[in-house]
């Protein structure tokens, strides 16, 4: 999310969880040109429901400047119910509730600001369902 043009292009994926489903069944978010299983370039657009399971996670203590005021925070690899594997920050969840296998819902949040005069970047974060 480096500039306003790229940010605008990514809105369908980041705001609405629009993903690709390839004929092999492989589901991808973000977009890719080729199905890693079959090599096909054909796909259909699907909208993810916004629920999934934590496959693995880590707690970030040292980070880049944009995120240094929210440390420590967790980042997880999540498998959505449709099979897409996405990376997302975890929000509104105590660390004790973050576990491999925990169910999450994706919520619409502010990801970062491009300084005091740049655009605000919105997108999905994951919240553990407790």
């Amino acid at each position: 999310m480096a500039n306003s043009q790229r940010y605008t292009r990514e809105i369908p994926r980041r705001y609405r969880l629009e993903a690709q489903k390839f004929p092999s069944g492989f589901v991808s978010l973000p977009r890719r040109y080729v199905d890693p299983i079959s090599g096909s370039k054909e796909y259909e657009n699907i909208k993810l429901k916004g629920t999934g399971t934590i496959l693995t996670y880590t707690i970030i203590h040292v980070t880049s400047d944009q995120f240094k005021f929210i440390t420590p925070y967790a980042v997880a690899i999540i498998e959505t119910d449709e099979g897409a594997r996405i990376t997302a920050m975890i929000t509104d969840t105590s660390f004790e509730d973050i576990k491999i296998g925990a169910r999450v819902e994706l919520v619409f949040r502010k990801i970062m600001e491009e300084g005091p005069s740049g655009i605000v970047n919105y997108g999905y974060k994951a919240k553990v369902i407790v």
Partner: protein
Amino acid sequence: MIGIVGYGAYVPNYRIKSSTIANQWGNDPVSIEKGLLLVEKTVPGMDEDTITISVAAAKNALKRARIDPQKIGAVYIGSESHPYAVKPSGTVLIDALGIGPHVHVADFEFACKAGSEAMYVAYSHVKSGEMDYAMGIGADTSQGAPSDALEFSASAGGSAFIFGRENVVAEVLFTHSYTTDTADFWRRDHQSYPRHGGRFTGEPAYFKHILGCGRALLEKSGMKPEDFQYAVFHMPNGRFPLKAGKELGFKQEQMNEGLIVPIMGNTYSGSSITGLTAILDVAKPGDKIFMVSFGSGAGSDGFIFQVTEKISEVQDLAPKTRDMLNNPKKVYLDYGKYVVYRRKILFNEY
């Protein structure tokens, strides 16, 4: 029949107690809790703002409305904390919810009544026959200066209402607006915090407009306070709405359900309308609801709703307002964390 077909609220997960703020500044916590009826207030997460709160509330409204988002012809967000000075909040929301691009979008601002103002215009579009559905939203991450009286109340949250003609859960029976130029509360451009006229915010501002609008609404409708099961007013604290309601002839029992300010604080544009969602969560078919908002500057919007038999089908389709406010996982902040969450300290630019 024209009215609300879907409603939804959202409040953040974080809280600060009035006593924490009082202890910071040497105030008497008891006078805040018992005098102003402010026990605790919501605080937005560091990744939340008026746009994310509006999106969460609107998603809940869509769950209850059970309609195709593409059928919504207008979206208005009322707030005094829009994240951008120039760039609409509503455009982010419509793209997040899959509404449009064939949709009319505007951001409204009128201090604490911008949300009811958005509802008023959304309702009018449907009533005119211009469109099938229109959405009005009020949300805020309210500002209050450190040590100012507003710091005890300024909180975060919001509500969204979809108006339509089919499957109406609360019919709009009457509306009325009452507006004058009154310099009771303001925030100039580039200023971080609002200023206000102290006691002048009471009788000449809040009470004059709430009572002026409320009395006209009763007269226009030909109804009496005892005809209503519920009444809700703008809630800058717990004392003002109870006093205004009693002056209009309402009893405390009619106001208790919507009086969420002791555990939510004042969500500015989302105040009276989030009280309305708490009422709709428990209302029964046939119940009549009296609502009057207030926005400094100053004005009031009044609505009379009658709940329909469809209400019971939708109440459980999204989180209820008091359940969110009483969430057992809510996190209490100390004053140090609070000033970081509300960006009341200066950070280095990055």
